[in-house]
């Protein structure tokens, strides 16, 4: 397990004048325009907005999953604009975690195997199974290690996804509507767990949500409307 990262002045992600435009059949569509923000290590940050406002696109850009049309992006000290896809993947390896609205567990893998995936892509990983079991234990699923996703409830699946994201003790965790597919009670449990794990690991949390209650729990909040920060 990596040591806790508590340097609150350290900027883990930054966007400067970022824009994203997509080409449609006969027109262009500006999804994001002139976005500038700084995310400091150890903070919890919410990006909220209505459906179609561009918040998921911003999350993808900040995490290096996509490239901006304009502006510059920095992730963990590296300028993303100059990196190709493989270089960005290597940057994320073991340092960035993800939680998705649809969980994205692989249906043919058991809970422990799903968690292990995050360690298996890191060549120097050791004790993969033990660490994965431990991560599952931290999300309260030590009894479900051998279960397939189809044998688990939505809340349990999202907890496995959380374990997968936290098993590498990432510097930054990106969460896209992590409670979007869950009922109210389960949503609260998952949110509690996510905040608590981030705090324990010292991970920065970047959370995309349209749930105001969830956004309110974060240290910093950004709101997007029609592709602009307001």
């Amino acid at each position, binding site marked *: 397990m990596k040591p806790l990262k508590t340097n609150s002045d350290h900027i883990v992600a930054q966007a400067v004048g970022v824009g994203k435009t997509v080409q449609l059949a006969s027109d262009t569509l500006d*999804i994001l325009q002139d976005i500038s923000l700084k995310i400091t290590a150890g903070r919890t940050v919410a990006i909220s907005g209505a*459906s*179609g*406002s*561009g*918040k*998921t*696109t911003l*999350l*993808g850009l900040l*995490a290096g*999953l*996509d490239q901006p049309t304009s502006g510059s992006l920095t992730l963990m000290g590296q300028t993303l604009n100059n990196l190709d*896809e*493989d270089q960005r*993947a*290597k*940057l*994320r*390896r*073991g*340092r*960035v975690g*993800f939680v*998705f*609205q*649809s*969980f*994205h*567990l*692989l*249906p*043919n*893998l058991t809970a422990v*195997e799903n968690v292990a*995936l*995050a360690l298996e*892509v*890191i060549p120097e990983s050791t004790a993969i199974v033990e660490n994965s079991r431990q991560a599952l234990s931290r999300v309260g699923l030590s009894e479900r290690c051998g279960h397939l*996703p*189809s044998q688990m409830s*939505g809340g349990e*699946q999202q907890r496995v996804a959380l374990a997968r994201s936290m098993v590498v003790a990432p510097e930054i965790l990106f969460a*896209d*509507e992590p409670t*979007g*597919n869950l009922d109210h009670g389960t949503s609260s449990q998952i949110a509690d767990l996510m905040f608590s794990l981030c705090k324990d690991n010292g991970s920065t949390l970047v959370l*995309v949500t*349209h749930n105001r209650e969830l956004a309110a729990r974060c240290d910093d909040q950004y709101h997007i409307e029609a592709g602009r920060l307001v």
Partner: protein
Amino acid sequence: MLKDLIRHTRLAEFNLLFLGLLLVGMALAAVGLFTDRVEQSMQARTSALLGADGMIDSTRPLDDAYATLAGQFGLQVARSVSFMSMAITATGSRLAGVRAVSSNYPLRGEVLLAAVDGDEPESVSVAPAQGTVWSATQLVIDLNLESSPELQLGDSFLRFEREILLEPESGTGMLRLAPRLLMNIDDLDQTGLVTSASRARFRLLVAGSKESLTAFGQAIEPILKPYQSWHVADLRRDEVRNTIGRVVSYLRVTVLLAVVLAIVAMALAAQGLWGRQIHEIALLRCLGQTHSQTLKSLARVYMLAVIPVSLLGIGIGYLLQHFAAVIIQDATAIPLPPPTWLPVWLSLLMCIVVVVAVMMPILLAVKRVPTMTLLRAEQIDGIRRNRSASLSVLALVIVVTFFLARNLWLAFAVLTGLVFAAALLWFTVRSLIGVAKRLVAPRPTAWYAALKALLSNSGRSTWLASAFAAIIFALVLLGAVREDLFEEWQNSILPDAPNLFLLNIQAHETAAFASLLNTKGITEVKLYPIIRGRITAINNQKISDRTFEDDDALHRINHDFNLTILAELPVDNKIRAGNWFKAGEKGFSVEQDTAKILGLALGDRLTMDIAGVLIEAPVSSLREVKWDNMRPNFYIIAAPGLLDDAPRNYITSIYVEQQRNELVRQISQSYPHITALDLGMLLARIRTLSAQGGNAVSVVFVFTLVTALLVLFGVLQGQRSARELEIALLKTLGAGREFVRRAIVLEFAFLGALAGFIGGGMALLSGWLLAKYVFEFAYSIPWQWLVFSMTGAVIVVAVIGYTSVRSLLGVLPVRLLAQMAMPTSQIHPSGGR
């Protein structure tokens, strides 16, 4: 690596992909190994007809130098001397076609001897022991050799030991004028019958590798005397070879169908697998895996599975062909040599090619998977359909077709057939669905819900109907058409095929001879005149002035042809150029291959020496001859009136169902110079062979059926998630479980009717096409099978279809909707931006 492989085996599509590969390996190895053995056997058989791979034929004793030379080329050597002589016993005498052979005769093939004391007939490849003779059935009967086996031949006395049923060079060699007597060449001198001036054929038989044979042929060509000639076996006149050849090419086409279906199943599985792996690849990229790491890890998993699965398939294929060969050997006594390794390597190579062709375009698309797929479901649609995969599979089907058909025209015909069948299937299903769409009006019933599901998902319905139709096609072809087809084929060539050839009938006795046959119930006796003639000039250019490179051509111009005169085109002959003789027309009709070898064209003037008289006439037609029809066939036929004065004798072929030996005895007594050639044994072999061919084809159809089931499984698997959503929606809208169940059963029943109609119809059509163009006989289509196939398909498809989705019926709508949101589906309830 093994861990990754085990994880993949939990995916139904991955297992389906490799099950398809297993079947491909199995089918390719089984057919490859089997045909390899059959081809080896046929090569041996061709030589067996001659008793050797090649021979020098001479009318004077052969110089030992030839044998020495053959030895230098690494060829085995045997000798035979054939001549006519009277065989005399205590009960009478008879002209015999004596063949004295060296102890290692025949070099190729066997002599089939009749059973002794109720045992099975025995095949041997040695000469009779010194002091003994073996004799053809006719002599055994005529001279009553079984009760008085002492036989005088010239100055020596020999003892009859065994009866010959088949021997090298027997076949339908119609011009052997006397029944065979086989003796040891070491007894020849004692008989005093053969001297250098005797009228006898001296032969040096040789056997060895093809290269040595060709080299030897080239070496002796310049030193052969005018009365000597060099021969290799003529393949076309072997009835058994032709029968087997037909069965083998039919097997190849059927296996091809199975392999193509397996490839379609694999392609469907690969597409499904791709749909699943898009998420996995994107997720691993999110977690930090590079393109090359992803590619390597996927490639490793596939490579790890390809070799063992292919080898397992090839192993099962080996066992299948082994059992098939054992059955055929037992039933036909035709030995099949062990297979070579080549088909195994080729099958393995093809398996790898198949997997690479199916998977490579998909693996190459790994790089195009956007990581944002996990956040944006709609990005998947652009990469889910992989056009290069379709093109790759199409190219693969073409390669496999050529690999299996091994014949450009057959491959082209099969490919055209496949494309046509697929297009016809697709078009018919789409049209029927289109018509139904216009006719159906909304009603609140399960019937309407079923029809609507069928019609509104026309893509899925077409795939399902096509897969079911392919299965019905294989079943109907297997169950009904195949049996009818093989039965009728056997009936068409065998029961009334002549089993007795009668040669050397003199012109003055034809009427009396025909009456003798009439009294035995044989009413239709077609007597063919036989006139011997030699080509002396073509277009007034002497044949000796022309040069012929080809051995075959040289042989033909140096020998007499057996001509006949016919007013009507013989059965099984087809005119390929020109026209059959008109009344009063003078001309020759020449067999097309002979014309090609001799460089003869339509209209060329042919001069023939008929018993010293030169006859000139144009080539008025070129014919294709079906040599394996067991009837007298001719290279050259003269028009009526052209050879009226030529000396001739006659031959005929008849079918005698019972007491053939009795008839032969009577003919021998009344017409001692007539030779009877009994082909009953040869016909029995062909009959068994075609029956076994039918069985072999059945096994291959089972392959086809299994692969079609695999395709069906692939299609059903692919439609599950969409069906889950439909059921969930129906239930959410208030449909009860019973309503949904009935709608599903009815939908599949409709599909079954459609598939039964199309699959059954195509099977009947294929049967008719096979009968007309492959087996060449008239076939009455059993239309009732269309009704049976539709009824059967309605029941079977409804049961299979319902069973495949039954597990989805009991699930609550909420749970289904939750499942819809899972990563394997494409639906994201709130697609954020």
